[in-house]
């Protein structure tokens, strides 16, 4: 039976690389039919992201053009708002409350510290906040055509990546000016890849959950808005003291920020890395399970 249909897939793939998913939808139906849960669902989902890269790129352009149609600055807001945020944090903590990272450190060091934390934080907040509405905002399209919904988080990851890139450029320039650039920066792709996979898993879960729970987006964005004050983004152990720092470490997102800082400051917090890797594979597996199961069923709920 499945062979029979795969024959159809093979045949059409010659015609059009895109048809993979056109017929794969049908094969998914057949798999539902057989009640079989493929263990390699994660592999299937990840490979579809590679396969539809052209589709993802075109759809990303469409989404961004749609979001910013009629806006004066357009994507400029993605660049401006994180920088304004960093400036605000620095002014509040350093100038108003007069806190220092260490007795010798100045405002400039603190700005660098906040910037380095903002780089992963921006990607996280962007993806997590957007994920609940990823499917819901496109329901009219999803009802009519077979759409690889597992590729939806990629666009918000790319947009989040743009903001992070801006912060990183500023961070790089400021570090270079003060001679802070370290060889450990070459390891940056490692936490980036982990973060990408972690967010993919989270976004898969939240995008499915967001179809049913309409106010998930509000819950998540409120939570993230508060969590920034319970994270190492603006705070450090020397600012808050040991007991408060312990509380910050209970926030799972803190460890991601710590791992990124490890790379920027050439340090190593083994516990944070272990937790980061564990969280990544945990959420990715769970997200893939949920997405794989709900991929076709979600159509009944939108």
């Amino acid at each position, binding site marked *: 039976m499945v062979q029979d249909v795969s024959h159809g897939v093979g045949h059409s793939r010659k015609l059009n690389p895109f048809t993979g998913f056109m017929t794969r939808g049908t094969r998914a139906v057949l798999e539902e039919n057989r009640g079989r849960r493929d263990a390699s669902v994660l592999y299937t989902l990840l490979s579809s992201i590679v396969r539809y890269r052209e589709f993802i790129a075109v759809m990303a352009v469409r989404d961004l053009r749609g979001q910013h149609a009629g806006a004066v600055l357009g994507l400029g807001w993605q660049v401006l708002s994180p920088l304004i945020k960093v400036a605000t944090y620095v002014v509040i903590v350093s100038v108003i409350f007069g806190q220092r990272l260490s007795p010798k450190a100045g405002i400039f060091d603190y700005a660098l510290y906040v910037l380095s934390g903002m780089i992963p934080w921006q990607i996280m907040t962007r993806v997590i906040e957007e994920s609940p509405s990823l499917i819901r905002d496109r329901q009219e399209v999803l*009802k009519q055509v077979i759409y690889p919904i597992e590729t939806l988080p990629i666009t918000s990851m790319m947009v989040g990546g743009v903001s992070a890139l801006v912060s990183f450029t500023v961070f790089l320039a400021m570090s270079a000016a003060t001679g802070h650039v370290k060889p450990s920066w070459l390891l940056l792709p490692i936490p980036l890849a982990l973060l990408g996979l972690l967010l993919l898993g989270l976004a898969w879960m939240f995008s499915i959950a967001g179809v049913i729970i309409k106010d998930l987006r509000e819950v998540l964005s409120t939570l993230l808005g508060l969590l920034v004050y319970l994270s190492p983004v603006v705070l450090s152990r020397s600012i808050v003291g040991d007991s408060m720092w312990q509380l910050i470490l209970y926030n799972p997102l803190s460890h991601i920020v710590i791992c990124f800082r490890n790379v920027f400051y050439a340090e190593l917090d083994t516990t944070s890395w272990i937790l980061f890797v564990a969280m990544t594979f945990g959420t990715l597996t769970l997200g893939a399970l949920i997405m794989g199961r709900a991929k076709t069923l979600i159509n009944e709920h939108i």
Partner: protein
Amino acid sequence: MNAGHSLDNSLVQPPAAPSSAVAIRMEGVTKVFRLYDDPIKGPLKSLLFFWNKHRYYREFKAVSDVSFCVKRGEVVGILGPNGSGKTTLLKVIAGLLPVNSGRVEVHGKVTALLALGVGVNPEFSGRENILFNGILLGLTKEEVLRKTPDIIDFAEIGEFINQPFRTYSSGMKARLLFAISMSVAPDIMIVDEALATGDTYFVKKCARRIRDLVSGGTTILFVSHNLHQIVELCDRAYLMSKGQMISEGVPGKVISDYNDLIFHEERERLKQWVNPDLLLMDGTGDVLVHDVKLRNKDGISTNGFYTGDSLQIEIHYRSFLPENTRVSIFVGFLQSARLTYVGFFNSSVQDGIESPVLPVGEGAAGVLTVHFDQLFLTTNDYALWIILYCDGVVYCEYKGIRPFFVSRKDNAIDRGGYFTHPGRIL
């Protein structure tokens, strides 16, 4: 998310004979929807309290045990009243919905045109919308770019193509969307009512394009309420009702089955309609009607009639009138949707019709029969308005009673009813 409970493994069989000639084959396909009492908390509750999940939803069988087969290069039409499961079936074939049991075989690339203008953004230019819409329909970027000039040409948009889509006239919008849909050349194309709109010239152009696709080997599955299109385009047709395939064959035969079904359904629907009771609205009450029967040309009491056939109205009454009182009969036809008055028969003013004399006696019963050789009413729901009166004294009046349905014999669904008007050449 929470299906899979009723998956039927026994239905999976080893592949049959090599079926390269088959494009779509369905065997015993059933699709059940869960209608949650609460669309938000319902799915969550049934997931959390899975041992008791049936409390939170009702099941609705949209497609039930459907089997059918479409060969490569065939154009097959699917007919059926609204809510008969046609779109669900198409979505199952397109892979948009999983099935609960049965098996679906689809050979080749499917493009489903379930609605026009999927993902169209009015702010984007026509050209951008061609790209995004084409990609969503399953073309690659280079394919879309290669086809764009043809699409613009086919849609006859001209230099407006770089203007925002919202500035287009509705005709231009429709033409562009059709042209994009028609530009895909899949192995199997599923068309759901997409051709129902648009001006005649353009619809013809699309029909030509469909024929080109078919001669190129494309299989087409086609849902439409436009019977004319089904006859013109399809090799074969299926009739669906309440989720089941109830008829199959050449379009002509299936269309006649469809008309019978619609006629039957309209009559069934009328049974639940308002005012079945004979409620006296006005009058002295000297004559009371206790039953009104409508008979068709075969003398059968029914509530469905064909334009041009005969209709006989029997008014069963009881009279309390003194001797030798003549009564006139007024029968009005009301269009039941808005109770608009569309025609009447009146025994006192019409030539050659004598007002009958009612029998005498306290509550003497009798039947008045009004016969119409040819029913002039066209396709619609109707109700009667009956008055028995004499010289300005109304004995009884009933309005909006005995609903009935009239249709054209060859096309029960066509709401724009019309009739052959009697006339002669001088």
